[in-house]
């Protein structure tokens, strides 16, 4: 097990397309780090650079105390779980688990011991002699995990490992991966575009966009205090309501004075908009109801306010009964506002 350190890492393709713009990141020993971002943001490229599947244009990647820039993937002592699992179709599950160990010259008794142990942990013992095509998606996923575990590597690298599973299985496997990683204590880097997965798995979350890191932090900190418009919009489902400040001023006379100068956009989380009047300082917006989505325990209400370009979404506990066209009064407390600078889109300092 080891820490992973990236220093000014840059990736340029064909000399002109830059995928990663000089990026620094340090991952502690035993930490579970999730790289999240939209497709094309460079998160997979970054992971593959750590794995040794992509070359590093400039900068330095260290695993433990070793600079690995020029090492083959196999020499970096990492294991990887791929999105499509990449199980060897002609080998049995056992063959898949053993292959990496055999290539490393691990003694036979040790191979058998590790394979059995991994199979036990992942509950795939009954399938050891089957071929991958005879397994369900979830079982294949476990085999792919097993192939990583048996190697007892310095780090696990996960490249969207759950995105080929259906929603229910994805939820189960998410919990399981988290538990497994806690038990083994292996440093892990996990790439996903699914912000829910990112929130639930990460010790440390890295939000990426267009080849740069937007924000690093604990998942809840990032959710509560997004440092940029991009993070604000990307994290959370439905995302934060983002309203142009000038339009908001046209609608609300008593906006709080605490909004910093230079602010261009105000963000409000859907759960921070109330239909009932709160006790603390707030302002109100009059709107009409557009649509209601009942999601079981809560309702998502889409409201249209005259003068705003997009519908405002709010989250309300329980079942909201209402019809399109109903008038609504939206109550927004002063302390829930997020202000972002017009110039840069970064968070405005208070």
């Amino acid at each position: 097990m080891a820490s992973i350190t990236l220093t000014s890492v840059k990736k340029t393709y064909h000399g002109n397309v830059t995928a990663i713009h000089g990026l620094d990141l340090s991952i502690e020993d035993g930490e579970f780090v999730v790289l999240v971002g939209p497709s094309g943001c460079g998160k997979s490229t970054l992971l593959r650079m750590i794995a040794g599947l992509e070359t590093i244009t400039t900068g330095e990647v260290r695993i433990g105390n070793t600079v690995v820039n020029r090492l083959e993937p196999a020499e970096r002592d990492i294991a990887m779980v791929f999105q499509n699992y990449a199980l060897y179709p002609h080998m049995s599950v056992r063959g898949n688990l053993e292959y990496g160990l055999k290539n490393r010259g691990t003694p036979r008794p040790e191979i058998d011991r590790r394979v059995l142990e991994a199979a036990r942990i992942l509950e795939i013992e009954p399938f050891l002699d089957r071929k991958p095509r005879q397994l369900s998606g979830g079982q294949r996923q476990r085999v792919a995990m097993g192939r990583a575990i048996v190697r007892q590597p310095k780090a696990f690298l996960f490249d969207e490992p759950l995105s080929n599973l259906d929603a229910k299985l994805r939820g189960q496997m998410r919990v399981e991966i988290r538990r497994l990683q806690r038990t083994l204590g292996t440093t892990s880097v996990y790439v996903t575009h699914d912000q829910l997965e990112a929130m639930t798995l990460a010790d440390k979350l890295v939000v990426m966009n267009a080849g740069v890191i937007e924000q690093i932090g604990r998942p809840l900190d990032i959710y509560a205090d997004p440092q940029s418009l991009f993070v604000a919009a990307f994290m959370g489902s439905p995302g934060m309501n983002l309203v142009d400040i000038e339009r908001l001023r046209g609608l609300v006379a008593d906006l709080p004075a605490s909004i910093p100068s230079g602010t261009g956009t105000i963000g409000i989380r859907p759960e921070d908009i109330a239909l009932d009047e709160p006790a603390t300082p707030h302002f109100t917006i009059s709107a009409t109801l557009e649509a209601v989505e009942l999601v079981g325990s809560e309702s998502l209400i889409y409201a249209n306010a005259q003068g705003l370009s997009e519908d405002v979404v709010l989250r309300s506990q329980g079942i909201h009964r209402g019809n399109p066209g109903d008038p609504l009064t939206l109550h927004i407390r002063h302390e829930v506002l997020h202000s972002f600078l017009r110039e840069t889109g970064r968070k405005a300092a208070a």
Partner: protein
Amino acid sequence: METKRTVFPNKVLPYLFVAPQLIITLVFFIWPATQAVKSSFERADPFGFSTQFVGLTHYIRLFQDPLYLNSIGRTVMFAIAVTAISMGLALLFAAAVSRLIRSSQFYTTLLVWPYAVAPVVAGILWWFLFNSSTGILAYMLRYFGVIWNANLNGTHAMILIIAAAAWKQISYNFLFFLAGMQSVPHSLTEAAAIDGAGPFKRFWTIVFPLLSPTTFFLFIININYVMFDTFGIIAATTNGGPNQATNILVYKVYSDGFIGLNIGSSSAQSVVLMLFVIALTFIQFRYVERRVNY
């Protein structure tokens, strides 16, 4: 041209891997081809001591030579007849087989094996059938008053090689037509059926138009087959005779060069054929669903 996203970093290994193929290609394909082009512009003295550049002389002679023009004419006739007959019958059989479910495999098996019959063997089989003294078809024709003799009658000889060449090619065309028909989505014919189109109408208005890439591909392949792969058929039956009636281009280039030892003319003929194949290959890759994506 694409590779895998990640490639092996080795520098020498890939050269070792392509070397055998490249060496054979260079030594036995590209070098001889350039020699053919070179000697088509040269004349060697009878003792082979010196060669002289003669420009387009061989080509001009070639296209003024009535025997060569005759050979072109014969080749065109042969190619059209073989392609039309073998593709037509293959299309008919494929359409029939694709209507069947249970027995389709059975008929397919009985129709595909001639692919594996060598041209030489196909030639001898038909030669035997049409043989004036022992052949059953010659015997039957005599019954209708036709005195069949492919040894003497040029038309008879031509019919013989057309039959043999078309017969052998049916299986190939059949398989590709069948594969093409099986890839026409069922939903289309079903929609047409609901729209009131009967089986024949469905075939001609839906299936056949959708087969046009296959048809075009087969057309090119058949022309190629008739031009080059029928050498064995001619060699086993008519040897280009009687009186040049079946001396198609590929046989003539062989007999003029290898038997007649007329190197200059044979080389010029080679180059003409080469241009023809290059054109066919170009058309095939330009307009037919491509085998290569680069």
